[in-house]
């Protein structure tokens, strides 16, 4: 199946793929089932069955294989939306990579992540950075190899930003020709083209986003110790699913490694002009221009 969101392979010819995605049959029930929900099933061997009614059913095995049984046209954007979102998130948990609910951009050759719950402004922030000329590593889910020999690395994968129509309008980006994330959904895929960071970069800071109602309450403050651990754990993408898979110890070990980089609470005021200011301030901070 075509996956236009992923950049073409530029490595050596004929290597063995790390992750296989193929169309095929998915069993109704996994063997030795340890969790059975209406969407997610987990098998005794850690394999996952993820079913989105009307869209597709996915089987995720061994952190390497994804089988897709579409309930609609296989090339519909809807199928890719769930594949590259939740399904890749489950695969990360299987592989021992930490998926953070965060956007991530390159500033001064380093990966800077901004985490927070849905609707907090991650994608809008990512789009603002890209517009200022910075490169994108992730718009919604930042995948981290926390145990890389030189320190935590961010693994970029998907060169697009998902934006709601009102955000496109606010950023004066035309929706003409953009592919909707789903049929009849007012959320669109904005490709970043050459602004995509293709190679892994060292993770240098994680910000936990929080909105404040008043500009005077805006602040940046370091989180340490248990507070940092709890906040990061809360920002793990598909954390509950990971815990059901028995991956909580693995997540905590990864988070422990992340404490080697600064973890900061970033409280910013609502509104586009405040967002632009946040972009300038962060860029200055991480390009070493002071604040």
């Amino acid at each position: 199946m075509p996956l236009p969101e992923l950049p073409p392979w530029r490595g050596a010819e004929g290597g063995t793929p790390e992750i296989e995605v193929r169309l095929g049959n998915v069993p109704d029930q996994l063997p030795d089932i340890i969790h059975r929900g209406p969407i997610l099933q987990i098998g005794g061997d850690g394999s996952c069955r993820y079913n989105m009614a009307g869209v597709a059913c996915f089987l995720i095995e061994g952190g390497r294989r994804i089988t897709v049984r579409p309930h609609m046209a296989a090339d519909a954007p809807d199928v890719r939306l769930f594949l590259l979102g939740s399904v890749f998130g489950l695969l990360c948990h299987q592989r021992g990579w930490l998926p953070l609910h965060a956007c991530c951009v390159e500033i001064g050759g380093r990966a800077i992540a901004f985490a927070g719950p849905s609707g907090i402004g991650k994608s809008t922030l990512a789009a603002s950075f890209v517009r200022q000329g910075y490169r994108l590593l992730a718009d919604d889910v930042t995948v981290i190899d926390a145990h890389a020999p030189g320190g935590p690395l961010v693994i970029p994968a998907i060169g697009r930003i998902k934006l709601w129509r009102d955000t496109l309008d606010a950023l004066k980006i035309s929706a003409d020709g953009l592919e909707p994330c789903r049929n009849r959904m007012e959320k669109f895929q904005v490709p970043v083209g050459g602004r995509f960071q293709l190679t892994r970069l060292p993770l240098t800071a994680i910000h936990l986003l929080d909105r404040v109602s008043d500009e005077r309450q805006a602040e940046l403050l370091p989180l340490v110790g248990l507070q940092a651990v709890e906040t990061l754990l809360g920002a793990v993408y598909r954390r509950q699913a990971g815990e059901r898979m028995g991956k909580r110890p693995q997540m905590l070990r990864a988070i422990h490694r992340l404490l080697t980089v600064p973890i900061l609470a970033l409280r910013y005021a609502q509104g586009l002009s405040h967002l632009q200011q946040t972009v300038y301030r962060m860029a200055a901070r991480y390009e070493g221009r002071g604040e």
Partner: protein
Amino acid sequence: MTGFCWLASYPKSGNTWLRLALQSLINGGKEVDFRSRETFAAIAASRADLEDVLDAPVDEMTDDEAEALRPRLYETQARAAAAPLFRKVHDACMTTYAGEPLFPPALTLKTVYIVRDPRDVAVSLAHHTGRDLDQTIAFMGDPAATFGLAGKRQLRQVLSTWSFHVESWLRDGPELLLLRYEHMLAAPEEVLGRVALHLRLDASPMDVRRAAAATRFDRLRAAEDRYGFRESPAAGVRFFRRGIAGGWRDSLTPAQVARIVANHGPVMARLGYA
């Protein structure tokens, strides 16, 4: 395995007030601490619950898809719980996109439905949402009206019209106790006692008296003045505003009243609001 007690109402009809009174009641009539995050009866249309309990990718789902999963959420929660679960509800009592009841009767232990004079609801709702009275009156007459998108912490809740909302619950709400806001205001102790009995709460008459006193409207107002209230719609906008019945008389024009009566006359008459 247990089930749910739904505390249902159209918005701005006294639901929060009743929940605070019940919170006080189960604590033996203690004053409700506005600084605490403790909430009696969390919202049934919780986005976080759907994500956490069912691993639902709500971000990527349509409102209809998320709604269709809510009966699964309630089944899972009821299976896991040992004691009755209380939930605040603003949805109309209706069927999901998939055609099954949003609030499964088999999982419902009790329902309390609170109704308030729609003329007072209009004034209170306009204040709460920041829309003007004419827009609010149109909203209350809109069959497609929905609630709860702000901040995306809540799932979409279909209200439909005020009349549809009331009739849907009176017709389909299982094990239903109907309360009037106006009655809660006039005789809080009596109403709270009836609710406690209906919900089979273990509360003595003394607890009921204390809880009714601790959550008198002026006490809640004073607490909001002092500490703010986490459910207030925006900074500087009061949640507990007037707490009176018939306030519409000095807030609505005759034309506005006429529009509400034109939209909702039959249901108003049925409930004695004519």
